[in-house]
């Protein structure tokens, strides 16, 4: 350690230069990239996209989608996109991945997509021989996804049919326009394209994993690690300083699953991992002090934290109770004191990045603004009016996989106790916790972190019937009708207006105790190049980002690691 510190000291000044523009250095191939990702505590939920597990893109670096975020438009390359939202892009931030180009046509309403030629599925023993990726792969994948017993209700209702019009062209015929058409089947959580040979061999078995993506899964130890090896026949290239480089640069990518934050920080500090994608504010100062060479990025979390109240159970069927509980929690104090100012009081269900869709709190109606004030007196009054003068108690389920939530929930419990409402906290292992909600068997209270996804889906997935991510069970036919209208609206300005109105309405209904959203940090060592803290170029999809990273092995050695 001492040797490392001595080595690091004279190099410190040089790092500013070394960590400067990637253009100053020629990229190097090789090395193992060790990462603790944003999903640091949760192993892969499934390797089969047909299972509709939300982490599919995160864990299946071997799969690709029709569309992807265009990293050439990242801030690092002079663009204006940070590529950190969990599942949202402006239209112009998108490009084709397996698709080469696409075009909307009328009569009948359809999207014609031309696929890239020459992309190959690699050979996989016992699964398939190497062959070209063709339009039949897209059609078969889409049909399997639609017919999956785990598919979301009406998720693709707007698609009439899909046809392979050429060996490298497919057409989606639409029943009607849908604002999330590209997100849902093009670059969303469940949009991975996979070969039918994989389905036959068993798509859920990680040992069969094969795809056109930059890396292939070669080892999986549940709760410990996921290792991906470079796909030697990967098709994409990266242009750096006018020179094209075949991707990926690194030989291997390894995800380390670490439940304990202190262990994550130690692993980063000692150089055991190259990138730690999500760090809480409390650890930042000490990490900056003990490892001053680390590079940093800061981002407002793309997940909301809330205590959901089941509106189909007493006492939460009464809006006065729900509003009372919101008023009992001091949001401003949580943001200022608990998060040390590293949080925004109001950033969910719309993220401030969603320009045009997001409205700040001061633009909200008074009844919404009131929910973010601290008023225990009025909370008690509302509880009295609702027939609970002495308060009540209820059970809240929380995932033990989230240290943040395990710490935050007792704080909420403390606030609620002050108005006579007691909660019984039930920590659960992730599988049981998620299954409780997806089967509708969850408790009256459900403490949750949930991704914003994108402006429309954020409301759709939680407040319309039949959706997976609706722990409050809140829905109304008129609200669902507005949702349908928003999706069918092609004009984005008009759609933004509808979504703004719907956001106001759902906030006012208070199905959740809306809690502040904290800022998170990403840290990486200076030897990690061609990277600036980007997290996703699709729905929780990091593969193309990792494919572009190269490791400066000499610098790493010089720094004593």
């Amino acid at each position, binding site marked *: 350690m001492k040797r490392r510190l001595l080595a690091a000291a004279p190099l410190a000044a040089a790092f500013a230069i070394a960590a400067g523009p990637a253009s100053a250095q020629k990229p190097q191939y090789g090395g193992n990239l060790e990462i603790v990702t944003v999903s640091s505590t949760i192993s892969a939920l499934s390797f089969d996209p047909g299972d509709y597990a939300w982490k599919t893109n995160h864990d299946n670096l071997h799969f690709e989608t029709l569309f992807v975020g265009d990293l050439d438009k990242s801030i690092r390359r002079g663009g204006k996109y940070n590529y950190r939202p969990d599942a949202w892009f402006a239209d112009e931030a998108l490009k084709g991945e397996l698709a080469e180009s696409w075009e909307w046509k009328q009569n009948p309403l359809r999207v014609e997509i031309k696929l890239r030629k020459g992309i190959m599925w690699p050979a996989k023993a016992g699964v398939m021989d190497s062959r070209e990726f063709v339009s039949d792969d897209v059609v078969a994948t889409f049909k399997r996804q639609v017919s999956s017993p785990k598919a979301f209700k009406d998720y693709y209702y707007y698609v009439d049919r899909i046809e392979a019009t050429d060996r490298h062209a497919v057409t989606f015929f639409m029943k009607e326009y849908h604002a999330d058409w590209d997100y849902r089947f093009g670059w969303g959580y469940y949009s991975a394209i996979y070969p039918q040979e994989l389905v036959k061999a068993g798509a859920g078995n990680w040992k069969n994993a094969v795809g056109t993506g930059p890396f292939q899964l070669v080892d999986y130890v549940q709760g410990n690690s996921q290792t991906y090896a470079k796909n030697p026949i990967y098709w994409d290239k990266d242009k750096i300083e006018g020179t094209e480089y075949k991707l990926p640069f690194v030989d291997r990518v390894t995800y380390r699953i670490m439940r*304990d*934050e*202190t262990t994550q920080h130690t692993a980063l500090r000692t150089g055991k991992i190259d990138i730690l994608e999500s760090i*809480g504010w*409390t650890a930042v*100062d*000490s990490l900056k002090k003990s490892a001053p060479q680390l590079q940093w990025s800061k981002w407002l979390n793309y997940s909301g934290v809330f205590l959901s109240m089941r509106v189909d159970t007493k006492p939460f069927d009464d809006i006065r109770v729900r509003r009372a509980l919101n008023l009992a929690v*001091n949001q401003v*104090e*949580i943001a*200022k*004191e*608990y998060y040390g100012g590293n949080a925004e009081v109001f950033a969910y269900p719309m993220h401030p990045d969603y320009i045009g869709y997001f409205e700040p709190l001061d633009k909200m109606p008074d009844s919404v603004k009131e929910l973010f004030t601290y008023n225990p007196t009025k909370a008690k009054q509302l509880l009295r009016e609702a027939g609970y003068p002495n308060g009540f108690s209820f059970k809240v389920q929380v995932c*033990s996989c989230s*240290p943040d939530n*395990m*710490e935050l*929930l*007792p*704080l909420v*419990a*403390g*606030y609620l*106790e002050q108005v006579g409402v007691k909660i019984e*906290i*039930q*920590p*659960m*292992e992730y599988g049981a916790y998620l299954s409780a909600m997806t089967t509708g068997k969850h408790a009256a209270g459900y403490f949750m972190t949930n991704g914003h996804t994108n402006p429309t889906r954020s409301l759709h997935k939680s407040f319309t019937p039949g959706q997976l991510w609706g722990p409050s069970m809140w829905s109304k036919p008129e609200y669902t009708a507005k949702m349908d209208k928003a999706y069918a609206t092609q004009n984005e300005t008009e759609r933004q207006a509808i979504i703004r109105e719907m956001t106001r309405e759902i906030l006012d209904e208070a199905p959740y105790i809306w809690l502040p959203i904290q800022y998170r940090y990403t840290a990486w060592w200076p030897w990690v190049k061609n990277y600036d803290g980007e997290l996703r170029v699709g729905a929780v999809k990091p593969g193309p980002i990792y494919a572009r990273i190269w490791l400066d092995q000499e610098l790493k050695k010089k720094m004593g690691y």
Partner: protein
Amino acid sequence: MSAVVQPQFEALPRQRGPVATFFIRLFREKPLGAIGLVVVFIFMFCGLFADLIAPFGMNQISPANRLKPPSARFWLGTDHLGRDILSRILYGAQLSVIIGFAAATMATVISVVVGIVTGYLGGKIDLVMQRLVDAWMSFPELIILIVVVSVLGPGMWQVIFVLGLTFGIGGSRIVRGAVVSVRENMYVHAAQSMGAGTPRVLMQHILPNILPPVIVLFTTRVGAVILVESGLSFLGFGVPPPAPTWGGMLSGSGRTYMYMAPWLALAPGLAITVVVYAINVLGDAMRDLLDPRMRGSR
């Protein structure tokens, strides 16, 4: 008239009861054990009267006072939610008292029942049950605990049940050993030859004579249970928040804020160390004083 001479009797020294004798010997012969006893009394007092002596509620939050170092107002500082650590340590003692004594009692009952039955009856029952005990003891204790708590879900009663069962089965081996030794005594044979039934022999003759090791077993189990419960809470399998278990305090905020506010980890860590150490030295002293084979040793 001859004077009547009243016989002069020398007053015999007043006989002390066995309990008083034990305490006197404890303080005279085992000062470390005596200190342990005092600490255990303080610990039990804190546990039983936490509601009265804690300056704040166990979950009385005050985010404006988060992570305050020890001061006149907050003797042991505050945690990340602004809760008074001293109060949480005191309430934690309450939980530790409940869990420690309940699980140790359950463990002792299981140990005594299994140990007496197998040790006294012997034969095939002893053979079969002891092989089952062997099988149970061959599994790593912590793994069993984690598996069972994962299935039952975390909670105080689950922890008591699991620890009681685990320690109870393991401890039966010690009780059985004592029973095997006692059952060969003359008074047991005499009772048997006079026609005393098995329950009577067990309750009247065996049990009273194995009480010293059982008491020691119980005492050491209290310390072990507190320690293991802390370990379980540290791993996230203990009593759920906001209950202030010492292990939970150590693992949750204690670890997260270890660098910013070391008192968060120090206070529960010290509490666990002191109480478990005190119980262990008390148990050692009791063993020395109650076991006839150890008499004369200091």
